[in-house]
């Protein structure tokens, strides 16, 4: 009996794939099981292949693997798309009345369960519930108590009325019973245990939104763009409960400028976008940085360049975040490495932005942004959230920062590079800010000494941060191994799982959530015999940074086909690279 189950539902966009997947994922999570979801979706509203995959186990799961155990195939293409992952114990649920295939002949003796999903759904009250019939069938196939679906159905359909909920529960039961009655003789290789554990299930975009509210973000302006829109959708309707507001701006230029305005007025403010939006924001990014305005800019990366592959995975924007914009201005770049870390790094991003008065890029990649994962709820302990507003000064502190004419030195040159900050409304703090080079008062200057002084002052904030903060990496695997694997962003979970497939190959893994400022990897890299940097882009942008920092050549594993790394295939690649 297998407890670790890889499940998928596939069909056309518009078939309710995502909501069906979510209902099942929540049911599993509420039953005390760990869940990791992934989505394969196309940039269209209806039609085209789309799939929602779930990996579930009583143990922690943090990546997808190349194996599919139970598949709900709403279309024939669903089977074709997943052929490589099917095996002799796979079960495929399909509706012979509806699909083009009336029988199922798959490789490796796969079991096909032909279930009249549509007509059973009609018996329960409507053909639209055919996916729920299929979920009921899945419960039968996996020995998963069907009562666990009920709560999920209530959560999903509760606002549509009691009868809709009841119909859906009935639909699930009809599917469940159909399998038990008609396929009683089919041997069932899966049995999903339930536990008493309480988990929460959320994705990276939601974790960023939740982190923002926890950190006191009150103002959000954004423009819809895949895959960052979920951040805005999460905040809408929630941030208001905490005295905040979301504006859907007319474009990204407006979004970042609104956020800048709110930040200057004293609010913790954020915008979120994806690569093309960052391009549009770049001019204002420079203004944010040189006017020393605290702002969090979330970049949920997708496959580029240009419109690229908007619904596919990539980590291709690292260079842009590190170096983008004309001229030279300090910025911080944080790259959470897991869904839970999206929450924590968002909180940290707001604190860093205000402590150092500069723009902070917070970046997730598409995989992490749309991937749901289960966690212990105390991973998101609100009591541990601390808010540090840095050198925000009030009326009483102003005089210390005024010149002899009572003018406020908003860009005072200080030893740590950080100036006092007064927001409009603060008596005595009147000043102007500008994207022009300016003196301590914020006034335009082309004085050579002042220019150098201000550039140095801004850059000094980075040195100060490196002294005061802990820009560290996390470490996995064998601490004494001669081979070193380095990763950033969402690949961490996959790499951790890949360790299980490495057999007798020992590796030390460093997962780096800080892109700039970043931990110094020189000693680690120089101590290792072999170093490989894993990232979802073609040119090895982080590998280049590592080489630059350490003056050592490193190997690279790059994936840029738009698809996530998978633990087992990644293990093979690591072996090949390190043993070459």
């Amino acid at each position, binding site marked *: 009996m297998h407890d670790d189950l890889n499940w998928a539902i596939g069909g056309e966009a518009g078939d309710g794939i995502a909501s069906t997947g979510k209902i099942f994922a929540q049911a599993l999570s509420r039953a005390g099981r760990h869940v990791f979801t992934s989505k394969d979706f196309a940039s269209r509203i209806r039609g085209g292949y789309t799939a929602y995959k779930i990996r579930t186990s009583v143990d922690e799961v943090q990546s997808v693997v190349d194996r599919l155990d139970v598949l709900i195939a709403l279309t024939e293409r669903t089977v074709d798309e997943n052929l490589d992952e099917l095996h002799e114990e796979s079960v495929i649920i399909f509706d012979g009345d509806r699909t083009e295939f009336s029988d199922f002949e798959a490789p490796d003796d796969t079991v096909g369960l032909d279930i009249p999903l549509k007509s059973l759904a009609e018996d329960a009250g409507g053909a639209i519930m055919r996916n729920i019939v299929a979920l009921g069938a899945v419960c039968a196939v996996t020995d998963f108590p069907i009562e666990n679906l009920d709560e999920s159905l209530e959560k999903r359909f509760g606002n549509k009325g009691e009868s809709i909920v009841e119909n859906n529960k009935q639909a699930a039961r009809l599917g469940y019973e159909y399998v038990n009655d008609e396929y009683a003789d089919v041997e069932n290789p899966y049995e999903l245990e339930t536990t008493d554990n309480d988990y929460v299930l959320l994705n990276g975009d939601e974790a960023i939104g939740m982190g923002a*509210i926890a950190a006191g973000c*009150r103002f959000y302006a954004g423009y819809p763009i895949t895959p960052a829109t979920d951040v805005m959708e999460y905040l809408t309707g929630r941030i208001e409960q905490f005295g905040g*507001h979301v504006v859907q701006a007319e474009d990204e230029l407006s979004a970042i400028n609104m956020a800048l305005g709110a930040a200057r007025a004293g609010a913790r403010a954020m915008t979120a976008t994806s690569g093309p939006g960052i391009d549009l924001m770049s001019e204002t990014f420079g203004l944010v940085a040189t006017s020393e305005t605290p702002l969090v800019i979330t970049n949920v990366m997708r496959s580029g360049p240009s419109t690229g592959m908007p619904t596919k995975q990539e980590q291709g924007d690292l260079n842009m975040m590190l170096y983008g914009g004309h001229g030279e201005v300090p910025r911080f770049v944080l790259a959470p490495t897991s869904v839970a870390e999206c929450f924590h790094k968002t909180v940290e991003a707001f604190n860093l932005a205000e402590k150092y008065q500069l723009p902070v890029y917070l970046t997730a990649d598409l995989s992490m942004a749309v991937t749901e994962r289960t966690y212990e709820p105390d991973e998101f302990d*609100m*009591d541990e959230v601390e808010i540090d507003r840095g050198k925000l000064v009030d009326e009483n502190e102003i005089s210390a920062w005024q010149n002899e004419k009572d003018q406020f030195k908003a860009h005072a040159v200080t030893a740590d590079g950080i100036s006092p900050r007064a927001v409009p409304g603060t008596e005595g703090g009147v000043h102007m800010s500008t994207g022009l080079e300016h003196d301590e008062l914020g006034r335009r200057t082309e004085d050579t000494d002042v220019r150098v002084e201000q550039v140095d002052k801004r850059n000094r904030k980075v040195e100060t941060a490196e002294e005061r903060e802990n820009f560290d990496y996390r470490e996995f695997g064998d601490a004494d191994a001669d081979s070193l694997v380095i990763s950033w962003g969402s690949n961490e979970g996959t790499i951790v799982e890949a360790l299980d497939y490495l057999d007798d190959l020992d590796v030390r893994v460093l997962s780096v959530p800080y892109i700039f400022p970043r931990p110094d990897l020189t000693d680690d890299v120089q101590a290792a015999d072999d170093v490989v940097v894993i990232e979802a882009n073609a040119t090895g942008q982080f590998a280049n940074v590592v080489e630059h920092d350490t003056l050592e050549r490193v190997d690279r594993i790059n994936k840029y086909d738009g698809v996530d790394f998978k633990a087992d295939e990644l293990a093979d690649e690591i072996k090949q690279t390190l043993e070459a």
Partner: protein
Amino acid sequence: MSSENVRFTDFKSDKQPTWCPGCGDFGTMNGMMKALAETGNTPDDTFVVAGIGCSGKIGTYMRSYALHGVHGRALPVGTGAKLANPDLEVMVAGGDGDGYSIGVGHFIHAVRRNVDITYVVMDNRIYGLTKGQASPTSRPDFETSTTPEGPKQPPVNPLALAMSAGGSFIAQSFSSDALRHTEIVKEAIEHDGFSLVNTFSPCVTFNDVDTYDYFRDSLVDLSEEDDYDRHDYDQAKDAILDADKEYMGVLYQDENSTPYHEAHGVHENMAELPDGAPDGATDLVREFY
């Protein structure tokens, strides 16, 4: 500083403007400062935003909290600031290029959003700081370095744009008529919603057509027209689309429009924060059970 003691000179910085002698922007800015003082505002509670160009320099010459931003994006900055702290008096200044060319998209959306800010556009019908190119309000036959035979296209009519976008306060003034200009900006500040004041602010260096004399002779002051009702949409529309005359005054006002903060319930000053996560934040986690 309490608002009773504020004089318009309190809004004046000690920085000498680098505008050309005789520039219309002096009068435009003076009127803005007077209007702010006379409506009971203080430099401490005023936030002035501007973009790029001669108009963009205004934050340097005024004394208030101010931001000199990037070209064309001043309105979104003002919008964010006003929503984050509704207690601020937010005034946005721009030029005709800043507001009606590179920033025209933001202009339309700022009008329809109806956030309670005052937008003063210093309209000189030319690009001054880049030394004399055509602007979106230049006349079709206006010869410049980049349009030697004139732009050969109709100018933008900012008042018509504002009206079509649902503007609730649409006004035009003339920088040289200090009294009327100040009055109009005061009314704009007092209007509850987005206010456009298109201010003719002649460029004495590069525009020899849209001059002080031209505006002085041609502008029709609506306050002297007995039968003009600014609340009459059709009358305002006719005046705004009048191809033969240009008007000064409040062309249209809808005092019953719903400003953004009321429509969306945005009333809090967002600057104040607790030391940790806000009360009730744990409920956000519970949602994911």
